[in-house]
């Protein structure tokens, strides 16, 4: 099977959905003429025209407001916010508008819209271009939050997001754009709320998101050599969350480590740990562990930045701590 990277997978998904449904359009800063800061939307303007591939001013509220209003009228906007950190300047549109209009109107308005944004650290760009903010959005009822880790998942999940009828925040890790894997030529969709077991194992469950899925897999490889069999679960969508797959795995292994790049405090891992404590307490043979970023902004200095983020070594250590 052919191999493509995540950036190409996203571009394919956008192109296929735009060709399939004329209601789909994309908008954002620098996404048209040059195809986006990360090149994800390259070629779309030439193919679909400037009416449906719209470069915007630096007006994040207007970008998301346009997405909200046009989605309510039945278009299917895919808005790009260049960096997820910038969601802070247009938070109202997600917090009070996109996630509330359907509810407060008792279902009169439906908002099929996707907000794509580049997320994550490791890019040596200090504290305003590196954050992993998924927990904030996962917290808000009415939003769906997608965190693909592979090109295969990225494509199938984005197509589902575009065809769905909800506001979706689609988080693309900057360090994953050029990671390749096998993606079929034929069309496929991946349902929301269905975790993927990226590797099966019996001794410990590792639950990881986005870039951390790759680090968790590397750790699992190393641990195998040391006689520990690790199962790696990628939830793929954290809202909705596939609790069943997680619970089933933990009931089998009795040990769990949750890995994410976002801050540990109040993170996705806190929620998963709480679910496990509520629903799988009797199956746990060891304390639940979280490997995540400490309670500090991301610094510029590469040595400092790397020291904060979860890596293979930290994951291995955490697994060993609860395996003995």
């Amino acid at each position, binding site marked *: 099977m052919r191999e493509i990277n995540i950036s190409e997978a996203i571009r394919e998904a956008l192109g296929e959905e735009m060709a399939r449904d004329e209601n789909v359009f994309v908008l954002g800063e620098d996404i048209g003429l040059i195809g986006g800061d990360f090149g994800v939307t390259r070629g779309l303007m030439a193919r679909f025209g400037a009416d449906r591939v719209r470069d915007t001013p630096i007006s994040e509220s207007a970008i998301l*407001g346009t997405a909200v209003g*046009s989605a309510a009228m039945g278009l299917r906007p895919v808005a790009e916010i260049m960096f997820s950190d910038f969601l802070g300047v247009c938070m109202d549109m997600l917090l009070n508008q996109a996630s509330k209009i359907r509810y407060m*109107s008792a279902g009169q308005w439906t908002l099929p819209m996707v907000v794509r944004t580049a997320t994550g650290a490791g890019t040596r760009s200090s504290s305003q271009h590196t954050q992993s903010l998924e927990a904030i959005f996962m917290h808000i009822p009415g939003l769906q939050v997608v965190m693909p880790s592979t090109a295969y998942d990225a494509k199938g999940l984005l197509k589902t997001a575009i065809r769905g009828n909800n506001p979706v925040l689609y988080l693309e890790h900057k360090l994953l754009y050029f990671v390749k894997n096998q993606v079929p030529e034929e069309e496929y969709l991946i349902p929301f709320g269905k975790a993927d077991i990226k590797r099966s194992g019996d001794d410990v469950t590792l639950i990881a998101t986005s870039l951390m899925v790759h680090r968790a897999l590397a750790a699992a490889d190393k641990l195998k050599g040391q006689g520990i069999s690790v199962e790696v679960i990628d939830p793929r969508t954290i809202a909705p969350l596939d609790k069943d797959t997680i619970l089933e795995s933990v009931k089998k292994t009795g040990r769990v480590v949750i890995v994410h790049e976002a801050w540990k405090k109040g993170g996705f891992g806190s929620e998963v740990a709480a679910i496990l404590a509520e629903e799988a307490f009797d199956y746990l043979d060891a304390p639940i562990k979280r490997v995540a970023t400490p309670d500090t902004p991301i610094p510029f200095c590469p040595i400092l930045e790397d020291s904060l983020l979860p890596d293979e070594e930290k994951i291995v250590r955490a697994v060993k701590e609860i395996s003995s």
Partner: protein
Amino acid sequence: MVLSDTELVEFYKTMIRIRLFEEKVQELFRKGELPGFLHLCMGQEAVAVGSTGALLKDDMLLGGHRAHGHAIAKGIPMRKIMAELFAKESGCCKGKGGSMHLSDRDLCLFLTTGIVGSSIPIADGIAFSFKLRGENRVAVTVFGDGANNTGAFHEGINLAALWKLPAVFVCDNNQYAISTHVSRSTPIANVSGRAKAYNIPGVTVDGQDVEAVYEAVKEAVDRARDGNGPSLVECKSARLYGSYAADSQSYRPKEDIEEAARRDPISLLKARLMKSGALKEGDDEMIRKDGVAEVEDAVRYAKESPYPEPEEALRDVYG
């Protein structure tokens, strides 16, 4: 004069209906019969009726927290609005929106917002969809003077101007954002002056004169419908009462409140219609009697309606 006497009498009727509705709501609130916040539009009926009157049925109207008048003017049955204020299942949003969040999809009233300024970029999106699909419709949003200093206002109007969207931005400038007089929030004399920065038409009209409001908004709507892009229309109005139902208005000079009462848009229109002979004292009595009956019917309907079932709280979160 752009409106015939017959049309003006129709506008007059709607203004009276809104006034009677709001007075009843104020009374019910004071008796503790209505939950939540209330922002009434007494004194601002000419803006609600004049601007909404300039729209076609398919044009989408967006409003804010002070929108009972717009909802009535857009044709939402009073029963459905009153039931919403009573938090009943038969309300226009099944009791999940309340006074600040009214909507009727069929009558093209978009869900009104409680976040000042936020309807402006959303109107862009609605107008954009009309434009992309070649629908001959216009998106019109009404907001207060307070909205003119939000980022959403500036980003939204800039984008609408840049993309020549079929949108109209109507500022119902009642001079105050809660306690803050517009002179203490805005460094230019007229909110319409903001239009210059975006290279679109900006006009200021007397918001107590329903015909002036209608004329200005109609011109802007026609312009938008003809593909010539958005406009900003400022209507200078005045609240007869407080910002919210329990506001004592300690911040507002007496003369200012007296001036608002003196320039009550309903009295002004009535005097004019009586003078031209379009309205007789007897007609006025009939109009009021009908209005009172309609409001009483709405209250009865709302009171008799059941509350939503508990499960309703969990519905409509996701589509």
